[in-house]
């Protein structure tokens, strides 16, 4: 995972509450393979960024040419709520977005974001409103400093919150699996002890897939 320490880019204002992951990435595209280089970027905000005729709606800020290079999004509360689909994060990352600033984020979205090097930066609602106002003209540069936990824009500075565990992971670009592998022996020992403490949690011998499951008669 690419480390994220400081990010300087155009910041794009999406002044809506409850931008759920169905809006970020409509369910019908979840069948698609994530093929490089575009990955899932063609599906990002697919339906909400288009008008009734299917054309890019110029009123949607990410469609405006001055915001095209944005790596930062600022939204209102509850960004990424709803479905756990990591495809929503893939689409953002594949489109170059590395930070979503909002007063709150969906819990699963935020965890998925960190697993893909995308920073879910949490700010006060009042600060979010000020940022949205400042960014409204479009094409405005901002700097996100993860070490200082500050957002800088023109002469202004705003503090943001991020879970300390996530902050360290993002700054170092750490992968969870590598970390967990260092605990393999610990996991095995714990599991052996637990099997005695909670034998019922492992009573599922019949669930063992010892052979491929046969398909029944085709319909």
């Amino acid at each position: 995972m690419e480390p994220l320490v400081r990010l300087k880019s155009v910041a794009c204002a999406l002044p809506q509450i409850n931008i759920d992951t169905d809006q970020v990435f409509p369910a019908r595209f979840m069948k698609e393979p994530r093929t490089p280089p575009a990955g899932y970027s063609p599906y990002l905000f697919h339906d909400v960024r288009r008008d009734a005729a299917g054309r890019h709606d110029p009123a949607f800020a990410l469609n405006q040419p001055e915001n095209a290079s944005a790596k930062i999004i600022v939204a209102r509360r509850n960004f990424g709520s709803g479905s756990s689909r990591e495809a929503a994060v893939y689409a953002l990352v594949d489109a170059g977005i590395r930070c979503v600033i909002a007063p709150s984020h969906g819990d699963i979205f935020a965890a998925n974001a960190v697993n893909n090097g995308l920073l879910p930066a949490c700010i006060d609602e009042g600060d979010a409103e000020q940022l949205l106002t400042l960014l409204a003209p479009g094409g405005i540069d901002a700097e996100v400093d993860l070490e200082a936990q500050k957002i800088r824009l023109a002469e202004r500075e705003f503090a943001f919150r991020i879970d300390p565990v996530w902050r360290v992971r993002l700054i170092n670009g750490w992968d969870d699996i590598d970390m967990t592998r260092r605990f393999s022996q610990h996991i095995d020992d714990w599991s052996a002890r637990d099997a005695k403490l909670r034998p019922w949690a492992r009573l599922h011998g019949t669930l063992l897939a010892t052979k491929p499951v046969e398909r029944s008669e085709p319909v």
Partner: protein
Amino acid sequence: MNFNASRSASGPSCLFDKLWNSHVITEREDGASLVWVDRHYLQEGSFHAFNKMRNRGEKVARPDLTVAIADHYVPTRGRGSPGIPVVLDDEISRMLNQLSTNTREFGVRLFDMDHPWQGICHVVGPELGMTLPGTLVVEGDSHTSSHGALGAWAFGVGASEVAHVLMTQTLWQKRPKRLRITVDGRLSQGVTAKDMALTIVSLVGADGAVGYAIEFAGSAVRALSIEGRLTLCNMSIECGARSGMVAPDATTLDYVRGRPFAPVGADFDRAAEQWLALASDRDATFDREIGLDAGDIVPTVTWGTTPEDALPVTATVPDPGRLHNPSKAEHVRDAIDYMGLRPGMHITDIAIDRVFIGSCTNARIEDLRSAAKVLCGRTSKVPGLVSPGSMLVKRQAEQEGLDRIFKDAGLEWGGSGCSMCVAMNGDVLEAGQRCASTTNRNFKGRQGQGSRTHLMSPAMVAAAAVAGHLVDVRQLKAGSM
């Protein structure tokens, strides 16, 4: 970096504390804890995780604790209904085959489309006794919170976390804060667990419980069946909480006993003793508490584009002009526009085009009985689909003659799957169509591009079908069964 050994909490603890303590393997100095996963369910969307495994040359750590169930893409039409062909388009076949190839390659058991135990994961897990009290359950699906109804710690995860669980049977977690929602008193006639859930979501807000694990408690929650508790815990995520749970009690034990994968005999008795001990201690403390009177809850529906946009069916659509919070007013204006409503109109004046009875929220046998009770001897004014939560629920409903009631009312009786809740299997609304739905999300485009969803209980959907518009089920005289 230094690492601490796992610590156990001292003093009074709540249900969540006990579940947490019994699953923490180790705790890092920075606060992240490694937790053990007892049950891992997979669905068709797991292909990202399997690809990651393949790229790294990894294998599944504990296939004995991993079960795949096809639910998101399975067609509902014709399945289990002789004479009606199952139509599988190429894309859907590819998704189903992909799951079957992946599970075969990695040695994971699969209940595929044709399996008699197939159904929606969150219905099947509890129904087969795979989900047990005291277990930690995860799936790459946000409604995994449902399983908390049995006193499990259950939450949805993303694809990276699915891969992590497949490779290690563990997850890194931050300890959530604890929120207890106590509902005391008795639900009135015609008011269900769904109304309780929608009322709580509207009260707490769609992000009000982010970062919390919810314990649902109080006499009205204890009075709910496991089916009702599953509905309630299912919607925890709609107020932002990754998990919601109810302490195991006699109702839980009665439900679990005798299920295919539940422990039996003396093993069950020993387990039951541990499960009952999970209940929150009398003097346990919570980071936040909310109390509700069950008697204040009325049949509730959503009017807008997030589940927090819920109101009593007797109310009127909000007027953005009367709201002081500008961002809220903007949301209401946008939602009213998307939903094709007028500010101030009576909710009961909203005419519908379709009904859908199904999903992990409300497609268990009790839900189907409750809808059938309203529809018995009546006809639906609009077309609609009934998709049972599992093929076992379908069979049971047919034994009880519920399928006849739905078909006689003019509704389609399908097979089991996520179906029109997430509209990935071909069951979709057309743009602009309005649906009274027993599902969990009324997001823009959730039931198909441009679709309009109103969430409510199965009885309320049935009543809306009969009336052709949203209506208070208490105003329809119950038909005889």
